[in-house]
């Protein structure tokens, strides 16, 4: 029970925390609709139930007992009834003569045949003993039983002993002295209350008040009376059972209450972690406007805001993409025209200087075109609009193909070309166009920044158990300020693409050249 109370408290405090958490966000919760109030109602019902249930159970129990226990079980009523009856009878006999008293007592004895009665007069002498059915009346100094069945009143001159057979099998003796001494009377009265048989003493004429006319005693076996003591246990069991049922009902209600809350919370949580195809969770249905309902509403608002911003983002993305594409196109068109005119110039008779200037211009034109290309790519890549299709591909083959297309350029620049790639394929998860772009930009960089080294080597090397592709040049190394050579857009694209494809790049730069290592970020990328 204590554990349960603790649990309840824990739940309650949990509940409080939840409601506290939400309160700053949504101060307006109608109390009648809040979970808090519902929980309070539940607790209140449980607490109020105890004072209600106890009397109700007791009442119901008494009613049931009174119906279930027929009168035969307690033919003489309960002890209170007998006590008051005895007091009334004794009062009625006020001032009566002995014979009248005796007669009345005999009448009463007939009414209650299983009881024993005796009378003691004012002087303390036992004047009459009426043994009931089932009792043995013995004279203490003789074993000869008195013949009490005849009903003849007798004033015993010796002590009389009443023997009561008890339901337990024992016998209880009542010793009725011929003459009642003060000591014996006190002893008798001390025992009277707790005995079986029930012993009731009343003063003749006064009930509980001594009128100096002696007293009369009635003894009734307790099994003839209502079994109050033995019924108590049964009652307790019944009562306990009912209380238990009440508590079980309360626990079940409590558990259901929390199970419902839990279910709704889990529902909300699962809604949060299952994103739609947009990557944003779908809104949930708000069924009740309590704390969790408000939480769900807030969640929905958040989802709507997210969706809205995603929408805006997409529109901006689209706009940017269009803008860049348009810009690129608009830049390229005049470039094409310039290129054309330059080509026309070529055919003219130019001085050596003119030819030289023209070829420089053509080179720059090429760079400008590439820059525009890179700008567009970077824009798309950085905004995540460049969708990569990762496939398991032989990287070495792609490197060979890329190198093949760059070979003439390198030859033109009079590079020493050393391509040393193994025959066995190297399988990585890559996007073909993406990797091609990475390689093109890296090779381009070599031509642009390391042409003075006149050297390029493409090979593979083992790094941390992985095969890395190494592109090596003998240029001056990466300069802190590349100055006029460009914005580094090409390398930014390389880095972005490499990250997107889950690859790794490492660059060792020194005065004598740059070594660029490319390797897979995954561990399972060993050679197959």
């Amino acid at each position: 029970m204590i554990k349960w109370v603790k649990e309840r408290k824990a739940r309650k405090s949990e509940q409080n925390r939840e409601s506290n958490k939400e309160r700053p966000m949504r101060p307006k919760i109608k109390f009648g609709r809040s979970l808090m109030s519902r929980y309070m109602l539940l607790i209140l019902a449980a607490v109020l139930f105890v004072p209600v249930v106890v009397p109700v159970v007791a009442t119901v129990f008494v009613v049931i007992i009174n119906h279930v226990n027929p009168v035969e079980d307690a033919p003489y009523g309960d002890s209170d009834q007998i006590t008051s009856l005895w007091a009334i009878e004794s009062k009625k006999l006020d001032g009566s003569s002995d014979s009248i008293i005796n007669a009345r007592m005999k009448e009463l004895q007939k009414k209650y045949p299983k009881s024993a009665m005796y009378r003691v007069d004012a002087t303390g002498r036992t004047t009459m003993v009426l043994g009931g059915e089932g009792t043995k009346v013995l004279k203490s100094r003789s074993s000869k039983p008195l013949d009490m069945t005849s009903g003849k009143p007798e004033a015993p001159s010796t002590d009389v002993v009443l023997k009561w057979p008890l339901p337990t099998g024992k016998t209880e003796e009542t010793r009725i002295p011929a003459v009642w001494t003060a000591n014996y009377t006190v002893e008798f009265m001390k025992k009277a209350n707790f005995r079986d048989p029930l012993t009731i003493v009343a003063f003749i004429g006064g009930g509980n008040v001594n009128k100096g006319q002696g007293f009369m005693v009635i003894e009734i076996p307790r099994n003839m009376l209502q079994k109050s003591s033995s019924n108590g246990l049964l009652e307790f069991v019944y009562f306990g059972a009912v209380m238990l049922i009440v508590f079980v009902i309360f626990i079940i209600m409590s558990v259901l209450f929390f199970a419902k809350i839990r279910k709704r919370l889990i529902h909300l949580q699962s809604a949060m972690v299952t994103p739609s195809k947009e990557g944003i969770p779908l809104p949930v249905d708000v069924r009740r406007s309590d704390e969790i309902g408000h939480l769900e509403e807030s969640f929905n608002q958040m989802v709507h805001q997210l969706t809205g911003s995603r929408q805006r983002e997409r529109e901006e993305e689209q706009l940017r993409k269009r803008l860049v594409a348009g810009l690129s196109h608009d830049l390229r068109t005049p470039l094409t025209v310039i290129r054309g005119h330059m080509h026309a110039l070529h055919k003219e008779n130019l001085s050596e200087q003119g030819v030289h200037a023209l070829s420089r211009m053509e080179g720059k034109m090429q760079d400008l075109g590439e820059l525009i290309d890179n700008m567009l790519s970077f824009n798309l890549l950085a905004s995540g609009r460049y969708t990569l299709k990762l496939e398991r591909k032989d990287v070495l083959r792609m490197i060979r193909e890329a190198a093949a297309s760059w070979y003439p350029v390198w030859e033109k620049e009079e590079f020493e070309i050393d391509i040393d790639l193994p025959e066995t394929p190297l399988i990585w998860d890559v996007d073909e166009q993406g990797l091609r772009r990475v390689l093109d930009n890296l090779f381009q960089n070599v031509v642009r920044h390391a042409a003075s080294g006149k050297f390029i080597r493409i090979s593979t090397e083992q790094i941390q158990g992985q095969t890395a592709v190494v592109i090596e040049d003998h240029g001056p190394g990466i300069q802190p300020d590349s100055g006029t050579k460009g914005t580094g857009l090409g390398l930014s694209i390389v880095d972005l693409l490499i990250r997107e494809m889950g690859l790794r790049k490492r660059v060792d730069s020194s005065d004598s050249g740059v070594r660029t290592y490319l390797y897979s970020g995954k561990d399972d990328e060993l050679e197959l």
Partner: protein
Amino acid sequence: MKTKLLYIEDDTEIATWVREDLEERGYEVVWLGSGEGAAEAALDCSLVILDVMLPGLDGFTVGQRLKKEHPAVPIVMLSARTSIDDKLHGLDFADDYVTKPFHPDELAARIEVQLRKAGTVVSSEAVLTLDHLSIYEQDNRIVNEQTGEEIILSGKQFHIFAYLLRHMGMIRTKEQIYEAVWNEPYLDGDKTLMVHIRHLREKLELDPANPVIIQTVRGVGYRVKKP
């Protein structure tokens, strides 16, 4: 007869010099400012050069229609749209995609490749001379000028040599050659191609140990150098 090309381009300035340049190279150029009437104009043309940004129908749509009506006519896209998406979209139907700004030589080379692929005789060079070899592309004849003998190649040898000739000056990896000639994916460690090239060299080269016609580019592949 001159080879006729259809050139669709809305920018007059670019169109003018491209046209002039191509005409100088011995082509007859039909120029259209938009996709209108392209299908009719393409009827007697050997190749179509197509811009993407056109008034009215865009180049992609025009190209797709042209390809449907004249599947045999190669299309070279010539565009300032350089994104991968555009390129892939273009290459769905077009045979090549050249981005602006381009070098006129590059455009001419690509046109030549496409024409050769399509089987159209390249007007200017009916006979190709490579060192001691004279190659008559029209009737697939190779003559060793030193001895005057014709060199007979087996089917695969001829295919390999033709493929390298088509991409003259460019290096092709062994995977590319294998897949183009055999039409099936290259398997790692397959020596078939090497064997064929060895036999090919034995027939073509004066000194097969030091080949000059079919060069080996170490670590990359093979090429036939431009004369």
